[in-house]
């Protein structure tokens, strides 16, 4: 038998050369000898490390399997409320980022005489690179003051810079894209309606909800792990689902009722629901009498906004509008309208979210089973340090801060900053977070004062902040621009100094403190040593602090003792946290828990749910939400909408080979009838051109029935232009590149981004790109 098989192989091998010439037979690459079963990682000596995923910001618990000094696979942490033993594609694929050969490997300094954006760098030691950063920051402080250095940060290690180093250094100009480019409107609306934050993990009580209405909320394409589990379990339990979206999203495909609303008219729909609940007496009168103020004003306000009024505005059948309102009421209080996540759409977004929260309030579901539970942040003391000169307010959707008493918090920030200038956006908005995009003009104009330095940690400047041309102009005007990142992203390759960070599997971060029904504390710990000469964020921040004369704030000798001290203060220890991964504290999730023993959970000026906002009225804003028609696209243009891929996190994961195998580029969705009218077919390449003649692409057309006729749709995060990211480079189109303008929400400071109109320019060439599998086979 053995002889026969060898002979068979020899004969086959003789024909290999000829076969290889024919592409169709390419699969018949025969082995020179019989294959031996490859040794797999799980046959080795595998150890398991419990840590916290960093491939998005949901902070799932992770079991990392290590063999031979390498992480091979991860699974979801079992005793973690955000993973419950499971992981999404991004979590599962996170290992591939650690071993990406395109990672930043050593500190880089921009070659003298080159311009920002030329991309010419030389390698440097950490000592030299950190020295250049420190002397640049100190020079700015001498000339303009410490406030003239801004910090942008997003992600796991951002707290070391935006919260810790920036506070010690004394700058209030700290921005997080997850606030004004994402959640500010809903956080502001929630703050001034319920007096509480929504926070990074939406406190929707899925486990008890019987009727759920999603507005532009893409669960399924947006795979926040436990949220998707809850969504699936609720449907399995028989909960009814209504999805309002101009696009037949994945969530819409699972819905009992899909309302394909005209983009930009959601507030009219919400007002009509308020109208039905009020005029048909379908609201929870007892709940409102106990917990809310302003019902009379609300009732008078919504009287004109009938379903028949909203029908032609929203392009929906008034009978459907009325039916949903009645079904909501019939299921109350176990009926809920979650706020969604990316809420910066049209520049009047705080008012839209106010309308959404008012519908919830009329259903009597806030702080009640089946509606919203009351999330609380864990209580963990800081590592002892001298008082910081100020406390920046970067915030963001993952911010742990429990803002039960916003006014107190804002006052505290202001009093601490008495000796320092306030952030350049101070006083403009109701959000208690900084509007990151409003810091950019100060870099260009010097008004109200100059921002001359930028330390950017993981915020993709060109794929998250609209008006990229303005951002580039601002970067050119800076005295110092430093990027701390894992990959040579487009914006990173503009920096004066580039500091390579370790991936989440290679580093400790500060404790993750997450508001939840039972407050959560999570540990991120290294499973393996950092690759190449990359360093953890805590080390980079500390070494910078020491070089800036801030050693009194960095008294801890190493990260283990820092974390151990913080954990011992709550009766745990680093040793215990390493074994558990996740700690939880007791919470008070429902109003009934607060009524027993405690102050009002509503941190509004009145201490109640404010249906009518006197604060907004006093500031010159509508005290009750009003519908404002969106600007219509000009002839030949479509409104540009965008969303998520379940396998990607923003613009961060497009160089990850395994995730790119699942979704390797985006296409522009166009209604099939519109495509026929324009003579376009799926797979044709076009340019997208906005009203300012900015072109993006080439990008393939996806002609589909799943979208209204008046808009086009792109998945966000593609269209990288960075030759050093070999996989991401040139694949797909960037929606952000087309956003030459945004519409500012004057209440929250959010940057409304559904206001771009584009036309499709046919005849674009199909891009020639190297094969993904070939790029993926490169070794780290």
């Amino acid at each position: 038998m053995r002889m026969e098989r060898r002979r068979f192989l020899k004969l086959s091998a003789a024909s290999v050369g000829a076969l290889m010439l024919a592409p169709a037979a390419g699969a018949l690459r025969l082995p020179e000898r019989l294959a031996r079963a490859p040794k797999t990682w799980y046959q080795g000596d595998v150890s398991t490390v419990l840590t916290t995923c960093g491939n998005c910001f949901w902070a799932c618990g992770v079991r990392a399997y290590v063999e031979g000094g390498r992480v091979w696979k991860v699974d979801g942490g079992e005793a973690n409320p955000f993973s419950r033993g499971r992981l999404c594609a991004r979590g599962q694929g996170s290992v591939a980022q650690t071993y990406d050969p395109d990672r930043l490997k050593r500190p880089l300094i921009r070659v003298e005489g080159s311009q920002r954006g030329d991309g010419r760098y030389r390698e440097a030691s950490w000592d030299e690179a950190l020295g250049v950063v420190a002397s640049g920051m100190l020079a700015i402080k001498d000339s303009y003051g410490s406030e003239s250095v801004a910090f942008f940060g997003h992600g796991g290690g951002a707290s070391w810079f935006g919260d810790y180093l920036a506070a010690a250094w004394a700058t209030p100009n700290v921005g997080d894209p997850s606030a004004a480019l994402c959640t500010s409107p809903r956080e502001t609306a929630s703050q001034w309606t319920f007096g509480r934050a929504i926070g990074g993990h939406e406190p929707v009580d899925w486990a008890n909800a019987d009727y759920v209405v999603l507005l532009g909320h893409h669960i399924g394409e947006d795979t926040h792990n436990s949220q998707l589990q809850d969504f699936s379990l609720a449907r399995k339990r028989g909960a009814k689902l209504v999805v309002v979206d101009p696009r037949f999203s994945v969530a819409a495909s699972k819905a009992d009722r899909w309302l394909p609303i005209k983009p930009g008219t959601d507030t009219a729909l919400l007002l009509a629901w308020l109208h039905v609940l009020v005029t048909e007496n379908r609201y929870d009168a007892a709940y409102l009498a106990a917990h809310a103020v302003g019902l009379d004003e609300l009732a008078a306000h919504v009287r004109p906004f009938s379903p028949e009024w909203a029908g032609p505005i929203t392009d929906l059948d008034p009978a459907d509008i009325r039916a949903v309102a009645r079904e909501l009421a019939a299921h109350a209080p176990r009926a809920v309208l979650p706020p969604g996540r990316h809420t910066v759409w049209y520049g009047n977004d705080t008012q839209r979210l106010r309308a959404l929260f008012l519908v919830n309030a009329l259903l009597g579901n806030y702080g009640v089973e089946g509606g919203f539970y009351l999330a609380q942040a864990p209580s963990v003391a800081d590592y002892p340090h001298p008082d910081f000169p100020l406390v920046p307010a970067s915030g963001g959707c993952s911010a742990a801060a429990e803002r039960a008493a916003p006014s107190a918090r804002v006052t505290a920030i202001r009093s601490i900053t008495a000796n320092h200038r306030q952030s350049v956006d101070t006083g403009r908005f109701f959000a208690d977070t900084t509007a990151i995009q409003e810091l950019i003009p100060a870099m260009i104009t010097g008004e109200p004062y100059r921002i001359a330095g930028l330390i950017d940690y993981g915020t993709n400047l060109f794929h998250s902040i609209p008006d990229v041309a303005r951002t580039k102009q601002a970067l050119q005007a800076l005295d110092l621009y430093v990027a701390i990142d894992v990959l040579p992203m487009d914006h990173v390759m503009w920096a004066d100094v580039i500091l390579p960070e370790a991936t989440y599997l290679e580093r400790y971060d500060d404790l993750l403190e997450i508001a939840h029904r039972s407050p959560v504390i999570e540990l991120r710990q290294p499973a393996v040593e950092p690759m190449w000469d990359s360093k953890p964020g805590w080390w980079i921040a500390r070494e910078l602090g020491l070089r800036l004369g801030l050693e009194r704030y960095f008294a801890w000798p190493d990260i283990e003792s820092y974390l151990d001290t913080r954990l011992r203060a709550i009766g745990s220890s680093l040793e215990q946290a390493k074994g558990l991964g996740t700690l939880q504290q007791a919470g008070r999730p429902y109003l009934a828990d607060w009524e027993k023993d405690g102050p009002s959970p509503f941190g509004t000026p009145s201490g109640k749910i404010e249906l009518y906002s006197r604060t907004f009225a006093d500031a010159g804003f509508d005290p009750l939400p009003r519908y404002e028609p969106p600007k219509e696209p000009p002839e030949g243009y479509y409104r540009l909408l965008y969303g998520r891929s379940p396998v990607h996190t923003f613009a961060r994961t497009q160089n990850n080979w395994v995730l790119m195998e699942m979704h390797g580029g985006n296409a522009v969705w166009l209604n099939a009838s519109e495509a026929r009218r324009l003579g376009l077919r799926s797979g044709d390449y076009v340019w997208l051109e906005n009203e300012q003649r900015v072109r993006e692409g080439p990008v393939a057309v996806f002609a589909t029935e799943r979208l209204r006729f008046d808009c086009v749709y792109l998945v966000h995060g593609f269209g990288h232009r960075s030759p050093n990211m070999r996989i991401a480079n040139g694949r797909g189109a960037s929606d952000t590149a087309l956003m030459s303008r945004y519409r500012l929400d004057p209440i929250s400071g959010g940057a409304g981004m559904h206001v771009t109109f584009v036309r499709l320019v046919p005849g674009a060439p199909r891009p020639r790109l190297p094969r993904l599998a070939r790029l993926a086979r490169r070794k780290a």
Partner: protein
Amino acid sequence: MARYGMAIDLSACVGCAACAVACKLENEVPPGVSRLWIRLEESGRFPELHMQYRPEQCLQCEAPPCVPVCPTGASHVTSDGLVLVDVEKCIACGACIAACPYGARYFDPRGFVSKCTFCEHRLSQGRLPACVETCPTLCRTFGDLDDPHSEVSQAIRAAERVDVLKPELGTRPKVVYLNAPAGFGLRSMGVPR
């Protein structure tokens, strides 16, 4: 001795590919080939639309066409009903790839044919296949089809509808699909993602 099978609830699957990525890394599946992929089916006219994400992989047939065509006995059926490839016996002739009506097998560039094993190595440790363990929609159940109390048997009993791919071929797949939309069912054509 078990008769391992898997059920995938299509009413829950959102096509998020967590299963497919978990499979790749668990089994060190090389770039360019896959053991598990997701098909997207769309039908209807705006706004009357249907959509279905359908994960596909080796169906672990009870009458597997890939086994009798193997000239060396590399493709075989275990006592637990798993259809597996013995790499050391495989000569990469490709007969099994041609015989599989579901496109479930591929050439591994290391010189053998490979496919889904139901994560046999995990089963021997009492763990679930990687795709089942990680699914954030809980759409996959797994277990012994002969055990009426197994999770998979219970899920199949509770389903409104049970389908297999290409039933007319008589392959008797042990991966079944639950709750495909009425009047839509499983379409064999579609856009692979």
